[in-house]
């Protein structure tokens, strides 16, 4: 019961913040809403018995990535709002319609799921971090290393791209 309440509240927050993110006039505002959204998602992770992911979400997303966005937003202080010039060939509304259509379909699929409800039978014990760590460093060691290499490359690439060539 309490779980349902928590879920519905956070779900509403998530969707609301998401809407705000994509509708906010000021970029900085949407960044803030994004942070809030991520925090809510993190809370939802806690509900899903994934505290480690929740913390990682906060630390990496909210604490790292979005800060990056914030920097860029601050560096890109625009003389004129970016949305002025609009290309007539862009089919924004069609995209909106299509997105809604796809969502309708997915919802329909979900509705099928409602007919035969499946509760959370399996449950993760409290030693969540240990499990994740084991999985990362044993079964998924190679993907883990590859991900680290990917991050390194991304870092170098970002430095090279952002470097002001003198």
């Amino acid at each position: 019961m309490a779980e349902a309440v928590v879920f519905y509240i956070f779900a509403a927050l998530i969707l609301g913040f998401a809407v705000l993110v994509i509708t906010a006039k000021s970029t900085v505002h949407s960044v803030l809403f994004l942070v809030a959204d991520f925090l809510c998602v993190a809370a939802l992770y806690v509900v899903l018995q994934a505290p480690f992911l929740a913390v990682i979400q906060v630390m990496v997303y909210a604490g790292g990535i979005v800060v990056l966005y914030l920097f860029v937003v601050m560096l890109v202080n625009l003389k004129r709002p970016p949305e002025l010039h609009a290309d007539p060939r862009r089919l924004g509304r069609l995209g909106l319609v299509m997105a809604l259509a796809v969502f309708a379909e997915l919802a329909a699929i979900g509705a099928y799921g409602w007919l035969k409800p499946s509760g959370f039978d399996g449950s993760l014990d409290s030693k969540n971090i240990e499990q994740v760590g084991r999985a990362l460093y044993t079964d998924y060691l190679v993907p883990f290393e590859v991900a680290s290499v990917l991050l390194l490359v991304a870092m170098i690439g970002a430095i090279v791209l952002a470097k002001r060539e003198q």
Partner: protein
Amino acid sequence: MHLIWLIPLLPAFGALVNGVVGVRYFSKRTAGLLACATMAGALALSLYAFFELLTLGPEAREYVVRPLTWISALPLQLKDGSIGSFSIPWGFRLDPLSAMMILVVTGIGFLIHVYSVGYMHGESRGAYARFFAYLNLFVFFMLMLVLGDNFVVMFVGWEGVGLCSYLLIGYYYEKKSASDAGKKAFIVNRIGDWGFIIGMFLIFSVFGTLDFREVANAAGSMPVESAGFGTLSVITLLLFVGATGKSAQIPLYVWLPDAMEGPTPVSALIHAATMVTAGVYMVGRNAVLFSHSPETMQIVAIVGVATAFVAATIGLVQNDIKRVLAYSTVSQLGFMFLAMGVGAYAAGAFHLMTHAFFKALLFLCSGSVIHAMAGQQDMRHMGGLKKHLPVTYVTMLIGTLAIAGIPPLSGFFSKDEILFRAFQSNKIIWGVAVVTALMTAFYMFRLMSMTFFGTYRGPAFAGAGGHGHADTGHGHASAGHGAAATGHGEWHGPHESPKSMTIPLLVLAVGAIVAGLVGVPAALNGSNDIEHFLHPSFSVSAVGGTHEGASADLAEAPEGSEGGSKGAALSGFAHASRPKAAASSASAPATESEGIAAGKLAAAASHEAVPAEGGEAGSHASWAVEIGLMLLSVLVGITGMLVAYRFYVRTPEIADRLAQRWAGAHRVLSNKYYVDELYDATAIAGTMASARGLWVFDAKVVDGAVNGSGWLTLFSSWFSHVIDKYVVDGLVNFVGAVLEEGSFVFRRLQTGLIQNYALVMLFGVFAFVSIYLMSR
């Protein structure tokens, strides 16, 4: 004796060094020394081999060494369908004939080298070295020719001497006449070589081998083609064509007189002593083949005597001293072929040797005379030189007496032997030969008279009469040489030649005197040593009793096997044992087949009134005849000499009167029967015409075809170009145009707006989810 392969290599070495290094760097002295040293070495080796050969038994005097394999066996089909292995070793064969030849070549060659050191003194350094290089090279090839144990090696020498004679005749290549003469000699020789090489092909296709001894065995086991004209006759005839080319017989003798354009030592060495006798040697080497084809023998005899006669008649009226000698050479060669033709191989070879001596002597003397007269060769401007060059006079007189056949000089024995055998064989031939001998004596003594006797008719010179030989020795020689080279020059009158020239003269004179003594006929209580010595080389030949043939075969059977084993040892493959088998198989039937052959020959001989060679052993019936013939020939010689003396010394006007009386004949003779003109008109003109025709054919048809094909190529390429331009390119451009036009429509899709692309992705997602829904 196992070192005989070294004999040719020594002059080859000299030629190589002189030709490659010497021409640039050697002084005259070094070049001459090197050449003479190599010749001396060759001579020493030859003598050593010769005496070693003498130590063997008279029938075992045969030695073959095959240091290398030249052409390893390649199987070829023979005339009778069987397969013969064509393998040619660098084989050298030493038997009495080749032993005599190498002695002649190296000995006389050595003397002439020495002579040339003085004679060519006036040449420039490079030309000097070049001359000796040529000379050495010639000796090398000549030795290859005489030492080769099969036709191919012999042919190498054969061609090589031809080449060298071309080089040496054209030695003064800046003189057009000289180079022309060289070319003439070369081309005429080619004609002969054509016959020779065809004969070789035929021999191989018939006998399956080219080894002399094996060919001889195989041929010896064949029947004598007394009736009709068989394979052997064709072979021998072809070989004889080669011989006529090399030995200047009718109809190919025309090159020899022109060859006198070369330096005198060359004339002496090549055109008197060695090369021209190659033909004779070759015929003697293949005596077995020849003696099995009487027709060819007949032809050889007739050609020989005809050549001798014609050349002698021409020699009667020539005024150029060297040309006289040249024609006498031709006629003497005719004598040799006559001997060969009548089956007197030994006599022919004997005459070859003696002739080599006295003719070389005569040529060298004439060279000395020309040297003394500063290049003057016309006898009408000589005369009375007796007191100016006594050594030359004496030696030349000896040579003349020798060639005229005055006993006991060498020429007498050999020529008399030939005449005797000719008499036995055919009276007509004998008659012609006697007349020729008379003319020989006449023109030789005419030459002597015009040159040495009578009054001096040459150009005036400073201090005529007053002349010390001592003070005018060397300098004059060089002066005379400058004249010889250029034709004019400061000249102090006739004078004796330097030592290097006179010493060879003396040596050769001795040789000309004593050379005949090895062949003193039995009629004069002499044992005809040379005959017995040379006999094995001609064995298995028509002449020769049964026992001799058998013994000869017994003698050569081991040799054949030995040669075969040598071949096997040297060229290690299965076929190598083939000659051995052939030799043994040939020798086994040879013993009785020879008996048969000898019997037939006896019949043929009696029917042809040719007594067996064994006559000198058995029949004393012809002793009186032989003596009579000797006296006759001596008489003939003396007559000719006296007539000549009377004509040209006592009362010279007689000669002129005779010349006027038979002006026509005289003109014909002095124009050499217009043979050169005839050849010019026929062969050369025909060749030119055909060449011109071929040229026209080439220009019109061949070039036309080439140009036509070229034009065709051009046209086809132009056509393909058109195709390419309009069809292929058109297609490509069409496709490009279609794409371009189409892109006008489709490129609208590429707006450059990422969101539109994302929209397409979204469409895709929508489609897949829809499919999922439908499939549920």
